[in-house]
């Protein structure tokens, strides 16, 4: 496979974007992505595009990207892989560029969740990833689907709600300084612990907000990278792991099997291990998911994730800073955009341009987990010095 570089990455600020249509959001992210390319990127150079969108809004997704951004002469494909859509769309583009089929590929991820009322679309979203006969009628809502894992983990390893709250406090502290974040404020331990319960053990502040957003990245082959930048970020590893859809069929809820499989693939491809990662964007849709994922990614041993939080090793300045962008928790979580926006943050981190810069970061990892905890996608990036 050819080496593949990320030469541009951009996003629009996430939030409740009532004043923007999904087409406005997509064109905004596309413009920001093009503008981030050091030496410029003519639209005509793009040879293929992948569009990550979980829930279709305003119709035919691939056509929406092609038409909105003037990409009518190249193939455009929609990717839908639940909350792992963003990083999985990047994997698809990587295969095309790395495989030698195109030299320049665009990935745009988006979702617009605030064009319809939460109650009216609640079951539409649920129906997209629940078994109609068995799981849908039980009301296995997304926080409950993840909480069943976190509750089992807490039972086995003695983690507490305070450990979960540490994730939230840390990510809000980072997000408060990120101009692209949806929830730009800090929260205290007390606020997190005293927030109204959503699904025990999660309170309101343990959960992501409902955000609209869009983000994009440009991947190019080593052959043409010099045309676009002298500071490329290399896409060294990708992985997409699957697990059983139904909780009844999963073997161990104290872990996310999909994440473990995606990590194994991505680390093997990159030829590095978890100890080499300097900064990570981890899927913190619910506080405890980030905590558990430390172990599934290999950042610490089994049962040690609460210790990592106690020692603030995943805070900026710690051994392995996680979610310097604020994470999904503070930055927001429009599912199709989330993974792409993680890479936007890491693109800046590895080039030394991030708001919450992790000093000297060389290796970075972006992680999504989603569906009924049944899919994970991971992207491993290396900075320009590589």
């Amino acid at each position, binding site marked *: 496979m050819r080496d593949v570089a990320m030469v541009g990455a951009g996003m629009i600020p996430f939030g409740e974007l009532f004043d923007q249509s999904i087409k406005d959001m997509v064109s905004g992210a596309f413009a920001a992505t093009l503008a981030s390319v050091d030496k410029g990127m003519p639209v005509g150079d793009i040879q293929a595009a992948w569009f990550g969108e979980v829930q279709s809004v305003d119709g035919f997704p691939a056509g929406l990207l092609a038409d909105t951004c003037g990409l009518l002469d190249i193939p455009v494909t929609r990717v839908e892989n639940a909350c792992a859509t963003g990083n999985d769309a990047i994997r698809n583009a990587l295969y095309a560029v790395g495989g030698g089929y195109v030299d320049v590929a665009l990935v745009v991820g988006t979702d617009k969740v605030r064009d319809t009322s939460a*109650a*009216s679309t*609640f*079951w*539409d979203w649920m*129906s997209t990833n629940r*078994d*109609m*006969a*068995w*799981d*849908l*009628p*039980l*009301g*296995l*809502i997304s*926080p*409950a689907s993840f*909480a*069943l*894992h976190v*509750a*089992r983990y807490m*039972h086995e390893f003695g983690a507490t709600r305070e450990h979960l709250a540490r994730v939230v406090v840390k990510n809000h502290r980072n997000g408060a300084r990120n101009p692209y974040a949806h929830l730009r404020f800090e929260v205290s331990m007390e606020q997190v612990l005293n927030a*109204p*319960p*959503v*699904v*025990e*053990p999660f309170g*309101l502040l343990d959960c992501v907000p409902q955000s609209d957003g869009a983000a994009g990245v440009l991947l190019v082959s080593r052959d043409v990278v010099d045309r676009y930048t002298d500071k490329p970020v290399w896409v060294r590893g990708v992985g997409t792991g699957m697990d*059983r859809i*139904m*909780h*009844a*069929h*999963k073997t161990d*809820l104290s872990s996310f099997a999909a994440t473990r499989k995606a990590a194994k693939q991505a680390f093997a491809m990159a030829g590095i291990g978890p100890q080499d990662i300097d900064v990570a964007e981890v899927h913190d849709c619910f506080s405890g998911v980030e905590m558990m994922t430390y172990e599934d990614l290999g950042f610490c041993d089994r049962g040690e994730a609460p210790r990592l939080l106690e020692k603030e090793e995943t805070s900026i300045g710690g051994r392995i800073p996680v979610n310097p962008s604020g994470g999904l928790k503070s930055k927001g979580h429009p599912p199709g955009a989330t993974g792409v926006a993680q890479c936007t943050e890491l693109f800046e981190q590895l080039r030394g341009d991030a708001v919450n810069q992790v000093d000297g970061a060389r290796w970075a990892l972006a992680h999504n987990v989603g569906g009924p905890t049944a899919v994970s996608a991971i992207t491993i990036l290396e900075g320009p010095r590589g």
Partner: protein
Amino acid sequence: MQIAALATYRPTWADARGRRTLGSDEDVATLAVSAGRLLGGRLTSVQRVVLVTRRPDALLGTAPEVVLEGLGLDPSTPLVEQIGGAPATLETLLGSAEGTLVLAVDPVAPAASAAALVGPGGITLDGRAGARHSVPVRTVPLPGATDLTYDDPRLLREGGWKRVVRELAGSAEGERHLVIAGVTAADAAKIARGASGVAETEAAAPLLLLARLAGSRSPARLVAVENGHGVAVDVTVAGAVPVLAAERSAHPAPVTWAPSVAADIPASPAAYARAFEAKVGLKAGVCSCGELNYPPRAQCQSCGVLEPQRLQPLPRAATVYSVVTVRANVPGKTVPYSLAVVDVDGTGVRVLAHVTDDPPGAAPIGSPGELVLRRVATRAGVPDYGYAFQPEEQQA
């Protein structure tokens, strides 16, 4: 005719007056199954089922197939739905041949259900007498509608049940004890010295009284009444009769079970029909390698072969593997509710289920209990049945 075994069930929840009332996941079908399943292995002798209730959930009900599957009976077993109260239950018993399972269900407070298996046994009913006058004081217009009660309790008492009991008590004079189904225990005590009744006054009442009589050997005259209609029999208890009872201590029911945010949960009757036998019968797919797959799946999750799997009933005892409680509003659902993944003891099978008959959040990981048939949702107006986890009662 003779009764071989009896079973009685009362729901866990109690209304503001302390009367047992249905949980949000119970209805006529689940109540019938809750009582009937108590008969256990005796159900293998069932040839025919009669379901008696004054209040079917719907006039074109979904109950028959749910009751048969929930009891583990062959779906081709004859099942007759009989609308009626206490007299109808007694008439049904008297008209039933050996092998008939009579299920009587009272879904309104005070709610109860009961089952009687007709066949050689310790209880004998004979000496039938009947009376019928037109005293339509209490009527039930349609499923789900409010009862109509003519505003004259004296008419109901004097022209209705008192007159009927007087006409039918006959042989109760002397050594026979008088028991009355269809009026409250308090009213029964007023009509004759030593007469007894039960709080539940509809279809289940005669069976609840027979279950009580089974413990004593004194002969009794049982009168079942409803408005101006009554049926009476002599009850003779000659030997031991198994009486199986399920009655958990009461929990106060919420003021309302209605979802705080209304919404229709999407349904696919076609998907439900495909899942029905496994979902309502609690049956796993059995692979040729021996693995039990639940919910059944095309590919064995152990050995990976793709081949048709026959269905096999699972045991009901289970232990909580993980559990969470949903407290945020969920459109179309009654909150809070607990969702658990439970290990079915000794099978390697896990089930995702609501926790039922317990205050949400009360059963932690490791709690033992059993899977019980419940109406897990109503989708697009259609009831959806499956299994819920009922934690074992805490010893006080």
